[in-house]
C-alpha cells in the first residue's frame, strides 16, 4: 500500500510539473511518438511474424531416428507413466503388488493401463515413418532406409502381438491425407514383416553412408543390422509354430542361414547414462524407481505396492540361479548404524504372492525388490535383442528339426549369455564363470526329455533370461503356455480368473476410425478385452 501511495504521489507531482510549464501537449505528443516508434512489431510483415524462432522446419533423418529408437525401446515402461509394465510383469508373475489400482496384471482388476501402447503409432512409429519418407527415394541413403525398415518391423510386431489385427499397410499416412487406415489381418502383417526383414537386410551396402553415431544400436554397422534383421526374423517365424508351422519352418531356416546374433558384442541395445539429463537415464530403471521403488532405502511403502513375485523368486531359488543375487535385494536394518542396507543373500530373498493382497502386509519390507545397482541403475542399457534369446530360439529350432546344430549347445550358450549380460548393468551384475557352469551342471538340458519337456525348459529359461523384456516374455508364454503359471482369482476380477492375453485398443479408434475398427473387430470375433486372443495364439478360436 505504501508503494502505491508513493506512485500516486509521483503521478500527482508529474501533473503539477506539467501544469507549471503548461506544455502538456508537447509531452503528450512526444509520449505518443515514442510509444508508436518503440513498437517495431508494427513494421514487420505479417508472414515474418509467423516464423517460430525456436523451432526447425525440416526432418533431419538421423536425429529423428534416434528419437524413434529412444521412444521405441522402452515403450512399455515410459508410455502412460508406467504403461504396460505393470500388466505384463505382474501377469507373467515376475512382479506383484498389493495395490488394486496398479493391479491389472496382478489381480486382472483394472484395465485402464491396458490401452496405452497404442500411442506408439503417433510417436516412435510416426517418427520412424518420417525418416523413411525422407530417405526412401535417395539411393545413397539405402542403409538408413534398411535400418528404419527393420526398426519399423521391431515396433510393429509388438503392436500386432498385443492387439491382433491392427492398421499396418495404410497406417502412418496422415501426412498423405489418410486419416482412417484400414485394419490388416495379423497373418498379412506377419507375412509382410518377414519379407521386409529379408529385403531390408539384403539391401545394405557397407560402402554407402549410415546413420553413424545416431544409430544407437550399432553406430552404423550394417553387418550387425543384418544379424538383427535375421534374429528378428527368427523370433517372428517361431511365433507362427502353432498357427502356420510350415511358414514358421521356412522362415526360421532362412533366418538361421542368414546369420543371427551370437556374440555378446552384437546384442542390440541402447546405452544410458546416470547424469543430469533425465531422458538419458535408463527409462526402465527410471520408471521403476519413480513409479515404485523411488525410496529404496526405506524398504517399505513402495509407491505402487510393488515387489518381486513369489513365483519368480521361488523359481530362481529352486534352480540355484545366480541371477537371483544380482537382480534381487531385501532391505534390512543397517547393522552398522542408521537406516537400511540391501542384502542379496539367497536365503532371505522371498517374493510376494500375486493377486493375494489388498493393502500393505505387515511384513512388506521382508520381500525382495529390484537391485538398486543393476535393475535400477540409471546407467544400465536397455537390451532389445540378445544372444540369449537367439540361442534359445536356435535350441527350439533344433528340437523341431529346423536347425542342424545341437539343442543342448544352443541352450547352454543361451544360459551363459543370459548370465553374462548382467555385467552390462554394472559391476554388481557380474556373475562368475564358475557360478554359470555350476548352474548348468545343476540344471542340465533335458537331452532325453520329451519335446514338451524340452520346450518347457527352453521357454522357462526365456522367461528368466529375457527378464525386463515384458513383451517378448508375454508373447512367448501365450504361444507355448510355458512357464506354467497358476492364474490368480482376486474378488471381482474382470477376466474370470484367467491371465490376460491381449491389450485393449483404445476408444479413439472406435470413435475416429469406426468402420475399419469394426470390420476388424467383427472379423476376429474375439472382442476387445484383456481376455481376447490374437491370430497366432493357440487359444484363438478357429
Amino acid at each position, binding site marked *: *500500500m505504501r508503494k*502505491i501511495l508513493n506512485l*500516486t504521489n509521483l*503521478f500527482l507531482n508529474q*501533473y503539477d510539473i506539467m501544469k507549471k510549464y503548461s506544455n502538456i*501537449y508537447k509531452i*503528450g*505528443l512526444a509520449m*505518443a511518438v515514442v*510509444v*508508436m516508434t518503440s513498437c517495431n*512489431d*508494427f513494421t*514487420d510483415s*505479417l508472414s515474418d*511474424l*509467423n516464423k517460430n524462432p525456436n*523451432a*526447425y*522446419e525440416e*526432418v*533431419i533423418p538421423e536425429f*529423428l531416428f534416434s*528419437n524413434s529408437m*529412444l521412444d521405441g525401446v522402452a515403450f512399455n515402461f515410459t508410455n502412460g507413466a508406467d504403461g504396460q509394465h505393470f500388466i505384463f510383469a505382474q501377469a507373467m508373475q515376475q512382479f506383484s503388488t*498389493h*495395490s*488394486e489400482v496398479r493391479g491389472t496384471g496382478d489381480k486382472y482388476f483394472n484395465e485402464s493401463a491396458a490401452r496405452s501402447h*497404442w*500411442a506408439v503409432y503417433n*510417436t516412435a512409429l*510416426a*517418427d520412424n*515413418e518420417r525418416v523413411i519418407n525422407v530417405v526412401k527415394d535417395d539411393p545413397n541413403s539405402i542403409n538408413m532406409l534398411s535400418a528404419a525398415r527393420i526398426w519399423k518391423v521391431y515396433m510393429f510386431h509388438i503392436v500386432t502381438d498385443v492387439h491382433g489385427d491392427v*492398421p499396418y499397410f495404410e497406417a*502412418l*499416412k*496422415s*501426412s498423405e491425407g489418410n*486419416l*482412417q487406415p484400414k485394419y490388416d489381418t495379423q497373418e498379412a502383417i506377419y507375412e509382410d514383416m518377414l519379407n521386409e526383414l529379408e529385403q531390408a537386410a539384403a539391401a545394405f551396402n557397407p560402402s554407402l553412408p549410415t546413420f553413424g553415431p545416431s544409430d*544407437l544400436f550399432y553406430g552404423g554397422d550394417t553387418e550387425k543390422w543384418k544379424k538383427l534383421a535375421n534374429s528378428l526374423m527368427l523370433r517372428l517365424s517361431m511365433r507362427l509354430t502353432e498357427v502356420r508351422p510350415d511358414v514358421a519352418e521356412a522362415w526360421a531356416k532362412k533366418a538361421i542361414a542368414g546369420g543371427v546374433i551370437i556374440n555378446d558384442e552384437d546384442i542390440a541395445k541402447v546405452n544410458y547414462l546416470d547424469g543430469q*539429463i*533425465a*531422458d538419458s537415464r535408463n527409462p526402465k530403471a527410471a520408471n521403476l524407481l519413480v513409479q515404485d521403488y*523411488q525410496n529404496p532405502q526405506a524398504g517399505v511403502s513402495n509407491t505402487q505396492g510393488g515387489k518381486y513375485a513369489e513365483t519368480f523368486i521361488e523359481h530362481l531359488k529352486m534352480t540355484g540361479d545366480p541371477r537371483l543375487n544380482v537382480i534381487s535385494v531385501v532391505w534390512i536394518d543397517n547393522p552398522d548404524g542408521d537406516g537400511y542396507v540391501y542384502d542379496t543373500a539367497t536365503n532371505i530373498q522371498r517374493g510376494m504372492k500375486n493377486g493375494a493382497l*489388498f*493393502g*500393505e502386509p505387515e511384513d512388506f519390507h521382508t520381500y525382495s525388490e529390484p537391485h538398486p545397482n543393476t535393475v535400477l541403475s540409471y546407467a544400465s542399457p536397455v537390451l532389445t535383442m540378445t544372444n540369449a534369446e537367439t540361442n534359445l530360439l536356435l535350441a527350439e529350432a533344433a528340437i523341431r528339426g529346423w536347425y542342424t546344430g545341437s539343442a543342448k549347445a544352443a541352450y547352454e550358450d543361451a544360459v551363459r549369455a543370459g548370465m553374462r549380460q548382467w555385467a552390462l548393468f554394472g559391476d554388481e551384475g557380474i556373475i562368475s564363470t564358475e557360478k554359470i557352469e555350476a548352474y548348468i551342471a545343476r540344471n542340465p538340458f533335458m537331452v532325453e526329455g520329451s519335446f514338451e519337456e524340452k520346450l518347457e525348459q527352453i521357454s522357462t529359461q526365456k522367461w528368466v533370461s529375457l527378464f525386463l523384456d515384458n513383451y517378448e516374455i508375454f508373447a512367448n508364454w501365450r504361444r507355448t503356455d510355458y512357464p506354467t503359471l497358476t492364474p490368480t482369482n482376486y474378488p*471381482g*476380477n*474382470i477376466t*474370470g480368473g484367467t491371465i490376460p492375453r491381449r491389450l485393449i485398443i483404445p476408444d*479413439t*479408434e*472406435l470413435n*475416429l*476410425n*469406426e468402420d475399419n475398427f469394426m470390420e476388424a473387430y467383427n472379423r476376429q470375433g474375439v472382442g476387445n478385452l484383456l*481376455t481376447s486372443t490374437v491370430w497366432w495364439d493357440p487359444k484363438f478360436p478357429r
Partner: protein
Amino acid sequence: MASGPGSSSRVVIRGNGSLNGNNQPLYVINGMPISNRPSTVLDQANGATTDLGDGISSINPDDIESISVLKGGAAAALYGSQAANGVILITTKKGSRQQKGIGIELNSNFTLGTINIFPEYQYEYGQGSQGVRPQSQGEAISTGRLSYGEPMDGQPSIQFDGVERPYSGVSIKDNIKAFYRNSTNIVNTVSFSGGNESVLYRVSASDLQSGAIVDGSTYDRQTANVNLKAFMSDKLSFDTQIQYNYEIGNNRPGVGYVGTNSAWGVYLLANTVDITDLAPGYNPETGQEVEWQHVNQATNPYFARDRMGNQDVKDRVIAQGSLTYDLLPNLFIKADFMRDFSSWREEDYYPVGTAFRPLGTYRSQEELRTRSNGRLIANYNTTFGNGINLTAMVGGNLERDILDVSNLIGSEYIIPEWISPVNLNILAPSKGFYRTGTNSVFSSLDFNFKETYYLSVTARQDQFSTLNPGNNKIFYPSIGGSMILSNAFDLPDVISFAKLRGSWAQVGSATVDAYAINQLYGFRLGGHLGVPVQTSSSAISNPELRPLTSTTTEIGFDAQFFDNRFGIDFTLYSKINQDDIVSTSIAPSSGATSTLLNVGEISNKGIELLLTGNPIRTSVFSWNVSYNFAYNKNRVLTLAPGQATGNSSLLGKDSSTRFGRSYEYSEDGIRVYNSLSGYAMLGPTMPLGIGVPPYTMGFENTFTYKNFSLNALIDAKFGNQFFSQAKQYMWRFGLLKETLPGRDNGLTVEGVDENGDAFSKDWPSSFMSTYYNNDGQYATNFMIDGSFVKLRSVVLNYNIPVEKLNFVNLTTAQISLVARNLAILYRNSDHFDPEQASDPNSNSQNFSGVMLPRTREIGFNLRIGF
C-alpha cells in the same frame, strides 16, 4: 470464479460459436482491446493445476464507470475479428469539470465467504474393504479412501497413523469445515479527480487483499490508475490512461487432478476418519509426507496446503493514449494507441518428502505478454438534403500480440528445504516466443433521417499473420437499420416510445495459434550421450487453413409504455459460424492425433427478452423491477467426415454435449452382463447431457425509500448437466448411499448374458467394494443437473444524509450491506453447487473435477466522497 479471488471467470455471449476457439468476448477499455488470455498452469502429470487469473481479473471494479455489452455484429467494423464473440465495453471513470477543487472519494469493501453446500454421505458402514475394517496400519492406509468396512460400532479401530479411534462416522460437513476457513476480501480505493478548461484528471489507487478458503492462500493486488484528458487547443485534444497493477498470489489452491488439490483428501477420506488427525501431514523431523491412503498422488491435504507451494507475481501496465484533431468542424481524425503489457513470474514446487515425488520438483515460468493496437480513423459528419444526417468513417488498425515464455523445470533438490532452481540435480529450460498480427482497414456509413429512420453500413478487411499469404485475408460487410415508430406514426398515448430494428452482419476471424500452420521440430535438451535428438509433434499441420466467418442476423423491437413506466425489449437472432477452425482428433494409427481443419459449422439461434417496470415512482419511494430471459439453441451443423459419424459425433447436437458410456441393454431393455466377470457390459458411447445451459434468466428488484435502497437479484439457468468426477470417486469409494445395497447380505444381479440368455449372479457382501468400484465406468451415474435458481445478490444501501453532518465536509457517504450467492432457491443437483463445473477455459463446461467448495459471501461497503 472457481478458485477464489484473482482467478479466471467465464463469459459467453449468445452461445459458443467455435468448437475449439476461444468463445469469450473481447474486453475493451475506453475503446481499445486488452488481453484476456488466462494464466492457467496446467500440469496434469504432476498434479499441479492452478488458476492464476485472466486479463479481466486484474481490473479494479472501483475504476469502472460503466459496462456495456455489444452483441451480434454491432461491433463488426470497429473491432472486427477480435469481436467475433461480442464485446464487453468498459469505460473507466474520468475527471469532471463540474468538480469543484479536488474531488476525493474513498471506498472500502469487506466481504467474508462461508462454505454453503456439503455433500451427503452414508454413515452406516465405516472404513475398510471387502466388508472388513482395517486390521493393521498397512490396511488402514490401503483403505484410506474406502468406506466398505463393517457397520459402524464405535469400537476402537486402527487408523492410517497406527492410532486406534472409535469406529464411528465423521460427518463430511465437519471435515470440510475443519479443513477450510472463511474466505476474506478487503478492497480499499482512493481517488482524486477534478478538471478545468484545459485538463480533466482522475487518479486512483487501490489495494485488494484476499484470502481463499484454503489456509495460507492469498491474493493481493495493488492498482494505480491515471486518467488525463487535455484540451490543447480548440481543435486538438489528448486523452490518456495508464493503469499499473502489481499482483501477488501465494499458494493459490490447486484445482486439478490430485497433486496440489487438497479437496481430494478432504472429500474422499473414509467416513470414519477425522480430517484433523491427518495434520500436520508430514513428519516434522524428516519432512516426509504422512500418507493417508495408498495412492500417493492423492496428497495428504495438509501436506498439499502447507508444504507444497506456489507464488506468482505480475506487473501489468495498460497504457493508452489518443489524439483527436478537428480538421474541420465536422471532420476529425483520431489516433489511438494501446499497449497492454504484463510481466508474470510464477514458481511452484513439491518439497523433498512429497510421497509421489520424494526428491522434490521445481518449476518456474516467466511470461512477457503484450497486446498492442494502433488505430487511425477519420470521421466526417454532415447534414444534407431534407434532414438527412450522414456520418462517414474510415480507418485502419494494426494489432500485434506477443507471448514470450521461459520455463525451468527441475527435480531432485540437493539440500532439502531450500526451494531454488540452483539447488537441483536436474534442470531443463524451455523457451517459447509467439507473435501474431492482424492488419485491418474498415469504413462505415451511418444515415439518419429526421431521427426516425436509421441505416448503417460497414465494411472491413482483416489480414492475419497466422495463415498463409494467399488465404489470410477476409472481407466482411454489415448492414443494419431501425425505425422509431413513435416518431414516424401517431401512436396511442400509452406507448411512449417504440422502435423496430434489424441487422445482418458478418465477422471474419482466424482462431489459429502462431505457427500452427507449420510442421515444426525441436530437439531434446542435451541430446543423448553426445548425439543430437530431434523431436516432433503428433499434430499434423494444415497450411491450407483460411479464415472463418460468423454471420449474425437479428430483428427486434423495444417499446416503453405509460410514460416509460413499463418497457419491453425483444430480440430474435441467428448466428452461424462457418469454416470454424477445428482441432480435429484423428485416429492415432494414422500417425498423428490431431490436425486443424476448416470444417465446423455451428449455429446459435435464440431469443432475448427484457421486461422493465417502474410501478411505483414517488418522491420517497420507488420500485424498479426487471426480468430478462434468454434462450439459445446451439447446434453443430457440419464436421469433418471422420467426425460426422459415430456415436460420439457432435453433428446435429449441441456443441457442449458430453459423451460417455453407460450400461448395455438388450433389445428388450434388459441389462446385459459379461458372463465371465459378472459385471454389467458397457454400452455404446452416447450423449449424456449438454454443459452450456440453453435457458438463462434474471429477475431484479430495486426498492428505494428515502435514503435506503434495496436491490435483490435472482438468476436462474436451466437445461444443462455436467459429469462430476468427484461423485464418481465418492461412489467408487463407498461414500454414497447408492453403494449401500448388498453390504449386509450380498447382491443378486439379473439380466441377460452376451448371447441373450438369462443371467444372474450372486455377489457376496464381501465383494461390494470391487462391485461398486466397477460402477465408476458407467458415466450416467455421475451426471449432475446444472439447473438452478439462486438469490444471486442482495445489496442494502443507506445514503447518509451528509448535508446534515455539518462537522465534516462530505459530499456523499453511503454504507451498504452486500451479499452474494446468498441462497440456492432451487437445485436438482445432489452433493454440489450446480455451478460446480470446473474449468473456465473449457467451452463445453460439462465436466467438474474434485473442486473446492463454493461459498456464500456477505460483507459491507463504505463509500465517502469529499
